[in-house]
């Protein structure tokens, strides 16, 4: 069996099945939905950071852009929700194209510039001058499309697409070429890889993923302010989850989200008074003791991790 098929069958399919069934046995659907959203975002971070080495510290820019893409479609063009979600993804891609010059930067410079870009998008969308388009700071209310169950299903579709993309990267020469660019762009170029094109494709793919996620999120929550969908914690969480599991793998970000977001919710439900403290310490411990993620526990022993 080709490994791509194996990955789809034994990792992606069970994951989707579990999240498709869970809502019927566990009632906190929003928690499940948030799990799915973070799975999507963590894999989106995986695509760009894991496979190319660019840390998208302002990843939420695409997410929020997608959410507002969705809102604008619904408010002004009375689009149906699925159409609006597609447009949300395209909004992410458009932003990605606009920001693609940032790919010229390396390391921390890219991360910081990306963060700045996300904040710029936030301040732009939230400016009262754009009230007629985005409702500025006054927030949107999308009761016309409100349908949590459909939005949850759409989130699963987006997750499936995202996982499919990651499986492709993990099993294709394209993914290998991306990783070679991450490892050493000069050598990659001398292997015949078009470094710029590779990076732009990965960048746009991850922007598309976040845009779609934002669209689905907007569909589900339906009432939100700019601060809600541009909250920096989306970026931070997606990155931390992906890193915690281990990037450039299929299962790493999944494990990261399930464990860490699970623990996060558990702390939130049980000891909310020390929420932030525990979580901060957890993140520090992760970096200090497991810098290459949970999967490194396995790879260190020579086990192959898909």
């Amino acid at each position, binding site marked *: 069996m080709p490994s791509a098929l194996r990955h789809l069958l034994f990792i992606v399919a069970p994951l989707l099945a579990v999240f498709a069934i869970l809502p019927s046995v566990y009632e906190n659907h929003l928690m499940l939905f948030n799990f799915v959203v973070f799975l999507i975002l963590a894999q989106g971070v995986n695509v760009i950071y894991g496979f190319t080495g660019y840390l998208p510290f302002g990843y939420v820019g695409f997410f929020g852009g997608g959410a507002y893409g969705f809102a604008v479609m619904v408010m002004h063009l009375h689009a149906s929700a699925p159409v609006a979600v597609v447009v949300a993804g395209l909004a992410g891609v458009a932003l990605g194209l606009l920001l693609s010059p940032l790919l010229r930067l390396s390391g921390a410079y890219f991360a910081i510039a990306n963060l700045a870009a996300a904040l710029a998008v936030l301040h732009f969308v939230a400016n009262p001058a754009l009230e007629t388009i985005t409702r500025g700071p006054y927030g949107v209310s999308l009761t016309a499309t409100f349908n949590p169950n459909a939005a949850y299903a759409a989130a699963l579709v987006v997750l499936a697409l995202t996982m499919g993309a990651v499986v492709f990267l993990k099993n294709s020469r394209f993914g290998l*070429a991306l990783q*070679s660019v991450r*490892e*050493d762009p000069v050598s990659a*170029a001398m*292997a*015949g890889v078009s470094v710029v094109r590779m990076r732009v494709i990965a960048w746009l793919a991850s922007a598309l993923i976040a845009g779609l996620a934002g669209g689905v999120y907007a569909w589900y929550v339906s009432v939100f302010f700019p601060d809600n969908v541009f909250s920096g914690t989306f970026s931070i969480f997606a990155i931390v989850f992906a890193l915690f599991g281990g990037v450039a793998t299929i299962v790493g970000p999944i494990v990261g989200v399930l464990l860490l977001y699970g623990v996060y919710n558990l702390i939130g439900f049980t000891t909310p008074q020390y929420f932030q403290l525990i979580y901060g310490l957890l993140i520090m411990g992760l970096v200090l003791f497991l810098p290459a993620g949970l999967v490194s526990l396995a790879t260190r022993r020579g086990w192959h991790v898909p």
Partner: protein
Amino acid sequence: MSPKSAPILEASGVVKRFGGFHALDGLNFHVAPGEILGLVGPNGSGKTTAINVISGLYAPDGGRVSFRGQSVGGMASHRLVHLGINRTFQVPKPFLSLTVRQNIEVALAYGRAASAPPAMASLLDAFHLSEVADRPARDLNNVQQKTLDLVRALSTGPQLLLLDELAAGLNPTELDWIAGRIKALAQAGMAIVVVEHLMGFIEQITDRVIVMNAGKEIFEGTLAVAVTVPQVVEVFLGGEHAA
């Protein structure tokens, strides 16, 4: 193939500046298919810069670089690779967290070799990398990394190969072995430019050398003749002096 056949690469009056410093100051040379050309000169004379310009890392600021009659100055590296130019690096830069096999796979897949490139297995075998094929490149020793760098270049099926100090750090047995491999490549019709400090190695494999100083060529011919030219000797002694 005869070294007298038409040149595959011609550099004429190539200029490369870094700020006010002229790393290349009107360099002229050519190399023909099947020929091994040595590029020698003191540190800072512009040898590596020349290779970097030809392989597309830097765009030249003046002059002309033509490959098979086509002007290629300033073209992106990967496109030059696709045209048939490749190189190794003084400090090899394999993809450290990928396996040796994956390292080669990338080049095989993306090199767009004009003629079918050698098969993975034969490459691994010919360059003594079979045993480490499934280990990450990070685990390789320096010589193995250099060999892998060379294999990566060969996987794209180059017609012109630029070798930047491939021999440095190799022991005599390894030197003989690699010299044999390079000669075999040339005999198969590949044009090869070798930048090297080890004069013995240069003498062993090159047909012709270009002596460079201050960004331009000052001598062209065989190494045996070069050592009799006072200007060349002075440059080398002066170079040693300065260093």
